Every structure is written in C-alpha cells, then in structure tokens.
C-alpha cells in the first residue's frame, strides 16, 4: 500500500483494511470508470465538439490520457486531473515557500513547482510598513528581510511568458514565518478554500495550508492581520519579541501535536483541511495518546476508522 509502511499486527491490519474498504465503497469517483492511466483512451462523444485539456493528447483521432488521474469534464472541456503531481500554481493561490537564493532585487523561492518562484523586492511590503520606492540601500539590506532557508508565505501574483511564477507579499499576513514547523505533503491533498490562514485558538497556533503542499504550523503571532500598525508601537513590540526568543514548552507540544496530525492524515492519503486536523489532534489528546505515539500504527488505524465513519455520516446526511 502506497506510503503506508507501518508495522501492523493482525487485528490492526484487518481493521485498517475494513476502514479502507468502507472508504472505497463510499467514494463516488473511484467506483465509476473515471480513473485513467497513461495512454488510456478517454471515451468522448466524437460527434460533439470537445476541447482537449491538460493531461490529454490526440492520437489517431482518439483522445488519450498522458498522466494517471481522474477524467473531469467541464462543458466541452475534457481534462485529466493528475493526482500526485507537482504543484501547478494558479493566480491568487496562497503558498508557503523556502528561500533558495537572494538575487538582484528578488528572492528565489522553492515552492514545489517545476521552477523556482520569484518574489520581487518591489512586490512586498517593507517591514516598517511605509510605501515608497525601493532604493539601492533597500536592495543591499535584502538579507535583513529574508535570508536563504527562511520560510516565507506569499501569494501567486502572475506568470511570466516563459512559465515562471511571480509572487507577492503585499500584506502583513504574508512574510517570514518563525517559531514553528514546516511540513511538506502532496499538493493534491490541500483543497482550495476561502481560508488558508487558520488561528487555532484552543492551541494558540497559526496554521497555514499552502496550496503547494507546504504546511506551516507555528506559534500564533499577534497583529499580523492588522494592515496599519503604528510604527512606534510596532518597533517596541519587536524588541519585546526579541527578548522572549524562546517558546514555552506547552506551545511546542501543541505545535508538535498539530504537525503530527497533519503527518498522519497525509500518510493515510486523506484530504487535509483545518477541521480535520483539529479533529485528529483532539482525538489524540482525548485518548491520552502521547505526541510521539501519534505516528504509530495504532493511531493511524484509529484515524482511518474515524474518517470512514465521518464520511459515511456525511453521505447519509446528503441523502
């Protein structure tokens, strides 16, 4: 089974199998013939006009898939949604990336795309919050904003003609991420939603679900959302922040618990969203499961069973 290399005992194996079978029976797409592999012919009505989308090609008058995935049809457009591919950026997506290089007036970020993304100095807010032209001095001080290997949150701005991606970070909610963990999961597990920034109040944690499969779990930072912050106040705060450079133990444990919940969900191949992550973390704490035991086989089986139950309830409610 893909990605699941757990030491399961006999009962655990049977329970997991049963849960997965239940998930399989509940899924509408998997039971239909929508799944295709490379070089499979996609059935289309050739009398009607159709448009070839991503993941398809024409061969001897037939429409043929070029990737493994699920066939999707939108009006005339027929395309194959690839599972487990690298991230394909769309304008407006919120992504988390890692700085690879500091170059002329720009940073290069690794965002799990086929090329590195570009974050221009001009397309981000200065830390002091003033809108002005970027001077040569700012260019020299770029490393004071982001250095190599920093984790940065940004938004996809546009594409260049050569296919490279430009990012922007024009709000206080974007920027450098500190005091937390970066998790890298398959991008197809993160669904597009209205809200990708989550503040989990009960844990005191910020959760950022990057559309590129980079997930940030970190200590909650105040005043990130405030667009206009008094400059003096801000600088004062930053000095205070520097003084408490350490994170309390409880906070670290919370971060680890949430991070492990994400890890469990992604190894099981379940969609990762904020509700499910909170539910999983709460399940672990209610059962008094230690943080390091969350990655053990027993908890994986439990989460799988729980998910099967949840989905069956959801489908019942729909009917």
């Amino acid at each position, binding site marked *: *089974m*893909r*990605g699941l290399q757990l030491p399961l005992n006999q009962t655990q194996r049977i329970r997991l199998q049963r849960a*997965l079978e239940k*998930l*399989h029976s*509940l*899924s509408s*797409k*998997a039971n239909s013939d929508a*799944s*295709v*592999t*490379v*070089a*499979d012919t996609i059935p289309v009505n050739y009398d009607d006009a159709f448009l070839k989308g991503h*993941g398809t*090609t024409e*061969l001897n008058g037939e429409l*043929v898939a*070029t*990737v*493994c*995935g*699920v066939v999707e049809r939108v009006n005339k457009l027929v395309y194959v949604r*690839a*599972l*487990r*591919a*690298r991230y394909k950026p769309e304008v407006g997506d919120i992504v988390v990336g890692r700085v*690879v290089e500091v170059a002329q007036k720009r940073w290069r970020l*690794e965002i799990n795309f*086929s*090329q*590195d993304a570009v974050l221009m100095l001009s397309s981000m807010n200065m830390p002091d919050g003033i809108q002005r032209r970027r001077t040569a001095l700012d260019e020299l001080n770029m490393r004071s904003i982001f250095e190599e290997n920093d984790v940065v949150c940004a938004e996809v701005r546009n594409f260049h003609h*050569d*296919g*490279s991606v430009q990012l922007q970070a024009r709000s206080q909610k974007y920027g450098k991420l500190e005091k937390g963990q970066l998790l890298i999961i398959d991008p*197809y*597990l993160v669904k597009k939603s209205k809200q990708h920034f989550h503040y989990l109040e009960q844990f005191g944690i910020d959760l950022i679900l990057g559309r590129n499969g980079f997930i940030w779990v970190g200590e909650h930072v105040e005043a990130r959302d405030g667009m206009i912050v008094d400059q003096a106040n801000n600088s004062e705060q930053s000095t205070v922040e520097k003084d408490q450079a350490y994170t309390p133990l409880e906070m670290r444990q919370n971060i680890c618990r949430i991070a492990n919940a994400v890890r469990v969900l992604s190894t*099981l*191949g*379940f*969609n990762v969203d904020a509700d499910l992550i909170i539910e999983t973390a709460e399940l672990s704490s209610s059962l008094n499961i230690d943080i390091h035991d969350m990655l053990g086989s027993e908890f994986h089986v439990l989460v799988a069973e729980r*998910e099967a139950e949840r*989905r069956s309830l959801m489908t019942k409610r729909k009917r």
Partner: protein
Amino acid sequence: MMQVRPNLDYEGPKSHQHHRAFVFGFEYGFLKEKLDQKEAAKRANEQLGFVFDIGPNPWSKPATSSFGCKPSLVKMEYVSPEGLRLDGRRPMEMRQIRAEIGTVARADGSAVFEMGNTKVIAAVYGPREVQNRSQQISDQALVRCEYSMANFSTGDRMRKPKGDRRSTEISLVIRQTMEACILTHLMPRSQIDIFVQVLQADGGTRSACINAATLALADAGIPMRDIVTSCSAGYLNSTPLLDLNYIEDSAGGPDVTVGILPKLDKVTLLQMDAKLPLDIFENVMGLATEGCKAVANYIREVLLENTKQLEYRRGL
C-alpha cells in the same frame, strides 16, 4: 513387451538428441584426437567441477547416445528435452513480475520492479529547477538518468567505482528510452532526474530498470506519450527463450533487449550484441515484444489500482 517410457508431453526442440546433456563451456577438439570421447567427457567434467553420470541415455530415441555425435556440438543444456529451462520455465515463459509504487517517501515518484530474482528500485525527482544553469533548455525539460548497481546485488560482492563504463552506457540507454516518451516540451526550463538502482541482479536488469523508471515517472505525474515497457529474449540451444536469467545470460548467446511503446506500437529500444540470422532474429524479437506487451498489461493494472486508491482515500 511394451517399453515403459516417461511420459513426455512436450517434444522439446527437434534436435534435442544433439545437445542432450553435458557441459563443455568450450570445445575439447584437441582431446578428441588423443582420447576416446568418454574419457574426454569425464576429464572435462572434472575440470569444470560438474558431476555427471555418463551412462547410456535411456530417453534418446535412436540407439546412439548423445556421445554419438560430434563433441563440437555438445554444449550446455539450457532447455531439457522435456522443454524446461534451468529454472523450470518453458521457453516462452516469463519470470514472475511484481511492482510496487511509492516506495521512496521523499521522491516525486518511485517504484520497485521485480522480475523473478531481479529487483530494481527507481526514484524520480522533478520537474524541478535546473541545477546547472548552463544545461537549461529554454523550450523543453532536461532529462537525466543515473543507473547504479548496489554492491550486494550480485553473487560476489563487487566494489566497482561509480560511473564505470557499463553503468554509464545503461544510464544513457535508459535516459534515451524515457526521453522518447516524456512530453518534455510541456515542462520548459526544468529538469527531471531518474535514479535507478539494482538491488538484486539476476539477468535482465536493463529491462527491469526501464520498467521501474516508467512506473516511477507515471507516479510522479509526468506527462508521457505512452508507457515504455521492456523485456529481453535470447536464443540458446536453437530455441528462442523469453526473459533470460543470469545463467542463461552468461551463456554468451544472443540477448535481445526490446523496449516498446505498446499503445503507439513503436520500438524505442533494441539492443543485441551478437550475431543472429535474420529470420531467427525476427522470431526472437517477436517473442521479446510479446513479453513487453505482457509487462505493459501488468504495469497498467498496477497504475490504475494506485490511481483509484489515491482517489478514494482522498475522498470527495
């Protein structure tokens, strides 16, 4: 009185009397003159460390034993008169194949492919930013491939330097074969790395590597024209044999490795380092192509199963 004979359903190759039994890796022509043939056979067997009973052969239809024929025709028997090969397969039988997807956690795509005792692991990284800027191609992806053999993959533990001639050649072969099927123009200015490593070598590593690489590329979601599958076939004891194992491979006979695109019905790889008459070659290649198609069917099954699993687990 009726003669009791073992029941042989399979007639075996027509000329099986000629190469029934007894191994001389090379000709013992020089002995023929001095010693009688029986003596020569005994001596040769001792030298090669084989213990054979050189009695009269009860199964050969004519009264003459296998030693009735010239010693130059006496060779290693790779196909028994019953029509079985050394590992018990029929000449047109493949070894058991098994594939597993997603074996390397941090790779974009990965697979393990087994053909009998040959076991190969492949990992694909990319499409990703080109590491060496000067190699960047502005309108297509750069495909790189690295083949290596684990030290423990062969019977005797070999310590070969990385990048010897054989590995370099196979890396090139795999790269060219995979490049032919990847739609590189869809991923400009990026690079795709394919790493294949042989974990257990028992003949046919080249084919196994190509099959593993195909699976890994499909797993990584890299668009391809078609899947590439590969299989080898050989010709020993005047019989075409499918999917040679190590012993058959090291017999020194012809070994034809074929790689095909099954849907497009095209050949992307054809290698042979021996001579074969054209009509026999066509037979052997046809056999290898059939093998490729069988592998293709299996690979598609595995991929479809994997896709379905990913989809239903994700839900909605």
